[in-house]
């Protein structure tokens, strides 16, 4: 019976330890939330900080952030619309895409699965797009797959997986069951968009037409494009060696491509700080790099999902 006593004592001690820790973790003081938080106030840089939507002044990004009460794993915001990807606790890991209004109140919820990867809202705030990882949980383990969806917030029409869109590869209609899309960015007309498609081991930059529902490839090896506010440049991550990625800028008029000054590998969909520079997450901090190849600079520590609101 000695064994039973040892076991019971151990169960009590271990269970007590786990409960005590969880209780402490639950009561840990989170940063006080700002009473009212309007993501549309201009002159601020929105970031994800301590797991929640937060803001710092654009002219002083090193200042202590004003934190909202809204938790997101990845978000983007424009024109008064905020798209918040949040994982939902439950017996199975799930992700929801939430559309939030200017008081960060939920107006629409789309149930997804997987791990949040990318979020983007068009400049006007009308179109929203998201990408989640659904399997493999990584790029290398067998069968890595993403789902990308697009929502038109004005009509309420949502496509939860855009991979059925008719695709033209190098001008010819292309059929393959293995196409995967990720990283959508919208043009100012709320109809045209750019994204990445992968098929047969290659990635392509695609230009899509939401209304006509078709897409065509523009060039190879470009992922997670981000269109500049003036619509003249795309910044994307390109596979290089050593890499895996390096941010590059593409001039859409000349179709000339130049590497940015950030030499470290970046796995993010860039966001535009202004017409001349982009922001991205690297090693848990938000950095900015100019288009002209100048050196990158640190913007906000311990943050991700940057969005400049002007």
């Amino acid at each position, binding site marked *: 019976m000695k064994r039973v006593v040892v*076991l019971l004592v151990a169960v009590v001690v271990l269970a007590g330890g786990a409960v005590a820790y969880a209780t402490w973790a*639950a009561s840990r003081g989170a940063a006080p939330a700002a009473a009212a938080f309007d993501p549309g106030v201009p002159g601020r840089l929105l970031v994800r900080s301590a797991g929640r939507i937060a803001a710092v002044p654009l002219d002083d990004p090193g200042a202590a952030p004003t934190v909202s009460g809204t938790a997101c794993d990845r978000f983007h915001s424009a024109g008064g619309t905020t798209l918040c990807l949040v994982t939902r606790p439950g017996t199975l*890991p799930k992700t929801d895409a939430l559309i939030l209004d200017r008081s960060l109140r939920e107006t629409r919820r789309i149930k997804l699965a997987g*791990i949040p990867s990318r979020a983007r809202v068009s400049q006007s705030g009308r179109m929203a797009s998201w990408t989640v990882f659904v399997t493999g949980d990584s790029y290398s383990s067998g069968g890595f797959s993403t789902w990308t969806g697009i929502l038109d917030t004005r009509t309420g029409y949502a496509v939860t997986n855009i991979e059925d869109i008719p695709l033209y590869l190098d001008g010819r209609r292309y059929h393959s069951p*293995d196409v995967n899309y990720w990283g959508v960015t919208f043009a100012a007309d709320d109809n045209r968009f750019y994204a990445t498609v992968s098929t047969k081991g290659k990635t392509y930059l695609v230009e899509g037409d939401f209304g006509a529902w078709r897409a065509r490839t523009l060039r190879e090896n470009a992922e997670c494009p981000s269109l500049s506010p003036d619509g003249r440049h795309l910044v994307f991550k390109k596979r290089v060696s050593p890499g895996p990625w390096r941010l590059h800028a593409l001039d859409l008029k000349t179709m000339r491509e130049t590497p940015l000054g950030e030499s470290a590998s970046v796995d993010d969909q860039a966001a535009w700080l202004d017409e001349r520079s982009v922001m991205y997450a690297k090693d848990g901090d938000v950095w900015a790099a100019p288009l002209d190849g100048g050196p990158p600079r640190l913007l906000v520590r311990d943050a991700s999902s940057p969005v400049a609101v002007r």
Partner: protein
Amino acid sequence: MYISIKGTGLARSVPANVLALGLVSLVTDISSEMVTAVLPLYLVSALGLSLVQFGVLDGLYFGVTALVRLAGGHAADRLARRKLVAGVGYGLSAVCKLALLAAGGSVAALGAVMAADRTGKGLRTAPRDALITLSAPVDRLGGAFGVHRAMDTVGAFLGPLAAFGVLTVTAGAYDAVFVTSFCVAALGVLLLVLYVRDRRGPLPPGGRGPLRLGTLLRRAPFRRLCLVAAALGLVTVSDSFVYLMLQKRLALAPELFPLLPLGTAGAYLLLAVPFGRLADRYGRAAVFAAGHVALLAAYLLLMGPAWLVPVLALHGAFYAATDGVLMALAGPLLPEQSRTSGLALIQTGQATARMLSSMLFGALWTVLGATEGLAVMAAGLVLSLALAWRSLRAEGGAPMTAPSSRSR
């Protein structure tokens, strides 16, 4: 015998040591699946890391795990202390749960912890399975493995539930999940220490240590079984591909996708014990082969109408008829003093073959397309199965096909 359910029907048919090992696996699986369920989210959401940083290390980890598994098997045999080696493996994985907290956001440290966790898993599997083969009568090995695997799967079901329970009550504190997981893992180690008995009979005459792996492979029946396991592993499509194909064929709603593995696990859980018993009664080689026929049927359904429930049931039946049954087939072919190293060898061979299969099918999917790639794998499976059947039937009088004459 000394477990509290003594006297019940279960205890009479399944040795107490096997139940104890099953309980240890159940508890340990709760712990490890708690972490597995939240780790990608933790890395991406809490730490802001890119998953690709970990994907790159995957192949490397695999190599390390394989070597440690073989070395651990050899050490367990050499010292005749399987429980000790398994305990080190369980203990290492338990400590890793706390080390995850200590690693913080450092990619190097996290990578090291994840490698150590896998090492622990690699270390404990073979000695645990060897203990099962040494704890049950030879003619009931299939049933014993069935009970063990079913208990293990119950743990795998409960783990994610526990993790998200903790996340819910703590409002998303990942560290609380790791601490809880550690406490559960520690309980598993304690159960092993208290209730699992090593079998430390006198060493065989002459005090010989374990045979070298080369010597083991010179034994024709064991060598053939290793080759069969590897050949079939090479044409076994990895689970994630099966789920992905189902999703694509059926255009399943995104939120239902995470349920697919539960379907397989459910069938595995229900069928592991009956299939193990069938294997004991009608021949393990036959059930092992039938399991691969179920896999073939699942492939054909995936290429055809892709019916959800039948595909998942066949997929689970495949695991139920092959995973524990392979160990029950291999155990009696190995001399007691080399059992752990032999099982480690066959597990490593199978795991290596499955990794190659993943790479192969990934390439086929990319070049030919999913259905065509699967057709190639199905053709390969038919071929491997034919070879396997010939090879296994050659063991005419071996213990696995004549269990009744070997009961103790």
